[in-house]
């Protein structure tokens, strides 16, 4: 199956209008269009072709649909096919030439594409989970089905990072761990959902291009910014409608009246006191423990981060808003005669500002990058002189793709690459019981460069013969 890049529009009841052809079918979820080729899988247009060419081991052809915004020339016969390695098979340990060494002419230059499926023991997935909720401390073990499959890396802006797989989990720590790690990577790379648990942390369901589900709750939004940034962005809209605003955030909680933004607007002190470690004026670290409550903290009652109001500045009737960095949580208070906060119905102006925070948050998604090294024995399937392939990749004479998708090549030695798994056709990855992942990899270069680096020129086959192979 292939994820389709054709434009599709999603309507409110989940129907997709498919524009892969002029019939323009409306396709309901779980059903396919008139062609039986394009279907609606949970609101995403996919190709379900039991495609004669695509599914047959040996000859895999993915024809990209109007790549780079090019106009269709009306040609129905194979518009500029891209040969990918998906299903190409492999010749591990690669002492034989790769299964397909394809020659084709592109703009008058003889191009060679060496198509193989690499078996990768040195591989893994880097996961970015858009959430500010606390998933686990750095270096905490990440488990699938109870087995260690990776660890928590850093927090990035609005996201938590995990590293899964790698050779130590795959082959270095016992059969069961290897098998579970391999299954986890395979499922994630093929677009599946996987439940992970983090030691002393959260339980999270991860799926490429889907919202993470943290402790059973689907994450909705990324935070608009840290608490301090949120103050900076919305200070003007609060000014005049409220005496103070606290933006609750696990990283930096912001307080409008003390913050530089509030000072510039001439806001008066309110006597509010935050229980946390003050960084700079109006910015507080560690107001609570990390968790899955307000703004990525563990609190459900925002007043629990406030100390008693300072009688020097506070007065009855002081109005203040407490809001999280996603706008998901918000409450409005006024001080009573004993200077204690009493929750009141939120004025419309403030409710609008909370909605604006929410609107400015991007949808939370998980992204999965497959990372592997193709610098080993796989190279000898391409050339008799492996290091020359590495060098030609370095010199950008050889283009590396993974299932037709662009890759990011790491600087330094070897051919270590990362690819966004959502750009590959579905189920492009496989596995061997080693355990190791099988991933498609293609090397494309000019014919004369290929000869120069000692390529298996005798194995060259024409694009036409590949396409016509049954």
């Amino acid at each position, binding site marked *: 199956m292939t994820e389709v890049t054709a434009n599709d529009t999603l309507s409110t009841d989940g*129907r997709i209008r498919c524009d892969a052809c*002029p*019939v323009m079918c409306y*396709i309901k979820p779980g*059903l396919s*269009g008139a*062609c039986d*080729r394009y279907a609606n899988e949970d609101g995403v247009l996919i190709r379900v072709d039991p495609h004669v060419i695509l599914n047959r081991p040996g000859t895999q052809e993915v024809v990209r649909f109007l790549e780079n915004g090019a106009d269709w020339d009306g040609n*129905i016969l194979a518009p500029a096919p891209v040969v990918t390695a998906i299903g190409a098979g492999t010749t591990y340990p690669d002492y034989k030439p790769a299964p397909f060494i394809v020659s084709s002419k592109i703009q008058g230059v003889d191009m060679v594409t060496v198509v193989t499926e690499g078996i990768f023991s040195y591989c893994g997935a880097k996961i970015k989970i858009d959430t500010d909720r606390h998933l686990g401390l750095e270096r905490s073990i990440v488990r699938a089905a109870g087995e260690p499959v990776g660890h928590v890396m850093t927090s990035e802006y609005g996201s938590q990072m995990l590293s899964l797989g790698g050779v130590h989990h795959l082959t270095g720590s016992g059969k069961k761990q290897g098998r579970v790690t391999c299954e986890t990577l395979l499922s994630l790379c093929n677009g599946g959902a996987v439940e992970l648990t983090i030691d002393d942390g959260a339980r999270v369901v991860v799926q490429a291009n889907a919202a993470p589900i943290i402790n059973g709750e689907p994450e909705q939004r990324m935070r608009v910014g840290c608490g301090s940034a949120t103050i900076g962005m919305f200070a003007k809209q609060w000014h005049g409608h409220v005496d103070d605003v606290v933006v609750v955030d696990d990283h930096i909680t912001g307080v409008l009246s003390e913050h530089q933004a509030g000072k510039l607007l001439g806001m008066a002190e309110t006597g509010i006191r935050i229980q946390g470690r003050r960084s700079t004026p109006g910015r507080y670290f560690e107001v609570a423990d990390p968790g899955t409550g307000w703004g990525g903290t563990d609190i459900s009652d925002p007043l629990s981060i406030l100390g008693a109001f300072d009688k020097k500045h506070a007065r009855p009737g002081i109005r203040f808003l407490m809001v999280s960095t996603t706008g998901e949580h918000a409450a409005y208070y006024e001080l009573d005669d004993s200077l204690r906060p009493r929750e009141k119905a939120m004025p419309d102006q403030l409710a609008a500002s909370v909605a604006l925070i929410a609107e400015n948050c991007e949808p939370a998604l998980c992204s999965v990058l497959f990372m592997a090294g193709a610098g080993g024995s796989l190279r000898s399937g391409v050339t008799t002189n492996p290091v020359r392939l590495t060098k030609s990749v370095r010199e950008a004479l050889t283009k590396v793709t993974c299932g037709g998708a662009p890759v990011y090549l790491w600087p330094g030695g070897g051919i270590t690459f990362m690819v966004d798994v959502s750009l590959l056709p579905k189920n492009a990855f496989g596995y061997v019981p080693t355990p190791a992942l099988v991933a498609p990899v293609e090397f494309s270069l000019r014919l004369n460069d290929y000869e120069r680096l000692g390529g298996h020129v005798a194995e060259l086959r024409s694009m036409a013969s590949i396409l016509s*192979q049954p």
Partner: protein
Amino acid sequence: MLDDGRLHLQDGPIDLLIEAWGDAASIRLAYMAASDRMLTVLDELCGELLALRAPAAAGRTFTGQVACRMHKAVHPHAKNFITPMAAVAGAVADDVLAAMRAAAPLTRAYVNNGGDIALYLAPGESFRAGLVDRPDQPRLFAKAIIKAGDGVGGIATSGWRGRSFSLGIADAVTVLAASAASADAAATMIANAADLPGHEAVTRLPATQLDPASDLGPRLVTRGEGRLTTQEITAALEAGARQARRLIAAGLIKSAALHVQGQSCVVPYQDEMLMAEIQYA
């Protein structure tokens, strides 16, 4: 081109497997004509799609060649509910075959549009066509031998398990007729007639619930079947066979083979020549 010399053309829901016989130059010309014809077929059809999805009615006129073929094929059935879409697959096959024949002299040729086949036989030639009773579990249950002079230019199969919706419960109805469009329309009508109205073992859903743009509108289409008794199957087959005999008598089709849950029925079964045409494997 496929390795075995067949031509595979595809555009949207149209999926053609084409094979022609003759001298090499003629085959080449015919294949070029077929792909040229395919360039615009779908756009032409989509230009008139709304009218083609409306119930067939006399006096309606269409612009496209394929649309005209569809209209002509369904028109004789118009006293029952039918839309020109019932003949779309066959009409496309007929049209592409006509383009190929106009381009070069051929001895034999067929255009197979997802099971609805237009075929041409020069005098003295014949075809053996395999018949499948369950499109979702392809296996040959019979072969039809078609000879030049039999008056058969089209073979089409319809049934609820196939790609299009059916109002009836036949797994498959295969029809031999003068053109693929006629066979297509007739197969649809016979499959619709092979029915046990209101039977509780048959699951039906409004067509528009499955495909909002379906030409069948809110009519109930078959989506599943529980086990039926032998008597029930016979009754459904007989209802379809009655419709098939009417169409044969009207000169619209040559013969039909009907299948419901493993039981089959061929009409006209008295006719020796047609018994010879459809032989059970």
